[in-house]
């Protein structure tokens, strides 16, 4: 102990050699707990994805099909011809670095290849090497490289470490959208059967059974029946929703996660209570029982195939318009893609709220309205009797889900709703909300459990802002309008800020909603005693 000569690095043999090399020369290090398992062959086969096979990420040999280089390059060529976004984004980046530190994965992992610009360069370098004259001649000097197995692995590793949240796109002076590039990257990996299981499984399930979870029609019904029982326990009111009912005015579509997963189920109960109270003429569908679209995280074609069910079902049932529940990427798809894919929805009518008579002008072509738009209109017109005090024990903050914020622009409606049903509302710091909102870290189909460490790191920037309002204002509940958020932020909060729960906006509404003929409420939607109202009645 007399002589203490150890150098910091001797104390622990830090087996980390910081790459002084150029990123192109730094081979990808595929780390465990950072990636999702591959998709099963049977799931890919179910929907006809090519090259389904069983392979392991950790294996050296990914059993790539013969001529895979050609498949990729031809695929790239086709995509360049099909998407102006891709074609332009491959050429115009000046690498100014404005996006570099905006990605939650970069902030959380510190991995330089998680900088959006570099993640895009992974693809751009191959583009230059094969599709530009300068790249073909000058090679590395022009920032070009060849397509090799290692490059492909790198693509796969990092394109499934992007949640397509579009935060980088907000800061880019040319609007270059990494989500778009990741989508192209995933189109390419899908040509080789390199899908992740967490997407592949739900896609197959959704295709065959109508929803990601693979709930069959009778199970969908019994899930909702269970909710009805719970609602009766809470309010004394019996609700009997209808399924696949022809002639209903409105078709209601929501992510299936909310039928199943806590705390999303409470939001689903909220829908039931709200619609019952309004006497809404609406129906659920077991065929179009999925609002979300994991196909969107694989290929454009797959997304369109899954999405087709919504309009098809609306047409079959003869409804007037469609109401959509709280979900993130679902609304990117509905807002920006559905009409183009499967429209025109000329068999539907322009949405009009049967309660307030409000015309939803902004949805007159797609004919689908967001539940928060619908509810905000109800509240504004004084159509709901609300007892805010039931949410007094909550100090609420609102997390803008990436897609409704940056792919739709729905920022005020949910806030308006929350402020009308909760007394205590606090915003997170301004560069972490609205269009600058941080992703939950698990979107775009990577909310698996084997990559939990990646998810925790990716969720850190969001959780960190949650922690800030928790410490400062005592915030104990985070509201959101996304089913994936409800699941994944529950996990992220449990790790980073265990004191803060997660709720859907409609759950808050339902808790405050005073229903006609209800009994004195002693329980909240989670069947837990309502603070201040305990003890007045014994409930099993």
């Amino acid at each position, binding site marked *: 102990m007399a002589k203490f000569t150890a150098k910091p690095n001797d104390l622990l043999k830090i087996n980390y050699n910081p790459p002084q090399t150029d990123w192109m020369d730094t081979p990808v290090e595929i780390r465990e707990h950072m990636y999702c398992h591959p998709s099963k062959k049977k799931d890919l086969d179910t929907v006809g994805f090519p090259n389904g096979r069983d392979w392991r990420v950790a294996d050296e040999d990914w059993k790539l099909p013969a001529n895979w280089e050609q498949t990729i390059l031809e695929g790239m060529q086709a995509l360049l011809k099909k998407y*102006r976004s891709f074609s332009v984004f491959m050429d115009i980046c000046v690498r100014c670095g404005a996006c570099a530190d905006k990605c939650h994965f970069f902030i959380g992992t510190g991995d330089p290849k998680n900088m959006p610009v570099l993640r895009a360069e992974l693809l751009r370098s191959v583009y230059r090497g094969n599709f530009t004259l300068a790249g073909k001649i000058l090679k590395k000097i022009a920032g070009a490289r060849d397509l090799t197995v290692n490059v492909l692995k790198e693509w796969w590793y990092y394109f499934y470490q992007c949640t397509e949240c579009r935060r980088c796109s907000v800061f880019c002076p*040319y609007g270059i959208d990494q989500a778009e590039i990741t989508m192209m990257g995933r189109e390419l990996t899908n040509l080789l059967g390199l899908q992740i299981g967490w997407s592949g499984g739900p896609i197959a399930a959704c295709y065959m059974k109508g929803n990601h979870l693979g709930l069959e029609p009778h199970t969908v019904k019994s899930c909702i029946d269970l909710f009805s029982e719970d609602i009766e326990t809470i309010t004394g009111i019996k609700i009997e929703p209808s399924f696949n009912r022809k002639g209903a005015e409105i078709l209601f579509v929501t992510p299936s996660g909310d039928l199943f997963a806590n705390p999303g189920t409470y939001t689903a109960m909220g829908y039931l209570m709200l619609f019952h109270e309004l006497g809404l003429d609406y129906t659920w569908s077991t065929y179009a029982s999925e609002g979300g679209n994991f196909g969107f995280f694989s290929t454009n074609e797959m997304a369109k195939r899954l999405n087709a069910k919504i309009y098809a079902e609306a047409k079959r049932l003869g409804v007037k318009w469609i109401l959509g529940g709280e979900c993130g990427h679902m609304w990117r798809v509905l807002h*920006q893609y559905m009409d183009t894919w499967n429209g025109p929805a000329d068999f539907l009518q322009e949405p009009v709220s049967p309660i307030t008579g409000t015309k939803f002008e902004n949805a007159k072509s797609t004919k689908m309205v967001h539940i928060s738009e619908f509810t905000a209109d109800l509240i504004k017109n004084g159509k709901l009797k609300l007892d805010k005090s039931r949410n007094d024990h909550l100090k609420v903050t609102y997390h803008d889900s990436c897609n409704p914020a940056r792919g739709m622009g729905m920022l005020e409606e949910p806030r308006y709703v929350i402020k009308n049903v909760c007394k205590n509302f606090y915003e997170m710091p301004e560069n972490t909300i609205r269009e600058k909102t941080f992703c939950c870290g698990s979107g775009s189909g990577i909310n698996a459990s084997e990559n939990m460490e990646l998810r925790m790191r990716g969720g850190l920037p969001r959780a960190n802002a949650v922690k800030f309002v928790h410490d400062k204002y005592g915030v104990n509940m985070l509201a959101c309008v996304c089913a994936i958020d409800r699941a994944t932020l529950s996990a992220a909060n449990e790790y980073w800020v265990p004191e803060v729960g997660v709720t859907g906006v409609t759950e808050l509404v339902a808790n405050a909603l005073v229903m006609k003929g209800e009994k004195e409420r002693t329980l909240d939607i989670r069947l837990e005693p309502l603070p201040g109202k305990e003890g007045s009645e014994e409930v099993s």
Partner: protein
Amino acid sequence: MKTLFPLFAVITLIVLVVAGVQYANMQFLFGVIIPYLAVATFVAGLIYRVMKWASSPVPFRIPTTCGQELSLPWIKQDKLESPSGTLGVIGRMALEVLLFRSLFRNIKLDMREGPRIAYGSDKWLWLSGLAFHWSFLIILIRHFRLFAIQLPYPIHVIESLDSFLQIGVPMLYITDVVILAAVTYLFIRRITNPLVRYISLPADYFPLFLILAVAGSGVLMRYFTKVDVVGVKQLTMGLISFRPVVPQGIGIIFYIHLFLISVLFAYFPFSKLVHMAGVFLSPTRNMANNNRMVRHVNPWDYPVHVHTYEEYENDFREKMKSVGIPVEKE
């Protein structure tokens, strides 16, 4: 290596022109042929680039929304950040192109030492980018005097504004100082900011060095090593009227300047500098967020195979009936 190669490339270019003009007397090549070729390459290359982009359709309307959508009438829409019509899009693009709106967004909530939260910002990139691009544009416009017999009034205005400080003879143009400072800052940022250095390619340094050399030679010519202005004007007028003449005795520094400009022009369409044109074609910025109001048509849309309701009911008919879910076929 990433910086040295482009640096040597620019130096080589300078050596080339000096050798060519000074020792090989190739004034005609450097004064006439190369500038013509460069402008032709620039125009043709840029058209090719834009046509190539434009030949790929925009299958989906994918604006990145940075503000409140058009929604219920009592909710205030952010017409510039989430435009729902053409006018809004023009406004958004104008903000983007003229004022670099998105870079300006680079605002941060700063947590300085201690518990106090202060609003700071990271606007240096925005400021230097804006300063650089605007100076470049103004300088470019100023140069039109070389191609006109009489000085057009707008250029005169620009010149006098640019030199309003009234320092020195010839009077100092502010943009000359600004462009050198801005490009130098951009270069220093690129090599000192570790994140940016990591992502930089030789293709990022080359234009910086080239522009620095162009601006530097221009400044040298105007303020220090005087050149034969009458000769220069003769040459430029000859170029513009397609009756090229090469007057004797124009200083070498002019040829350096002209050659580097020519290289910049010719290089432009084949490099990241095309962002100038590309930004106008960026679908995340130049489209209206009116997706649910107006149907967007995908020109290459094709029918896909779906799992129909009929197939679905066939799979589950008995189960559906058993719980009272209506079916099409009993």
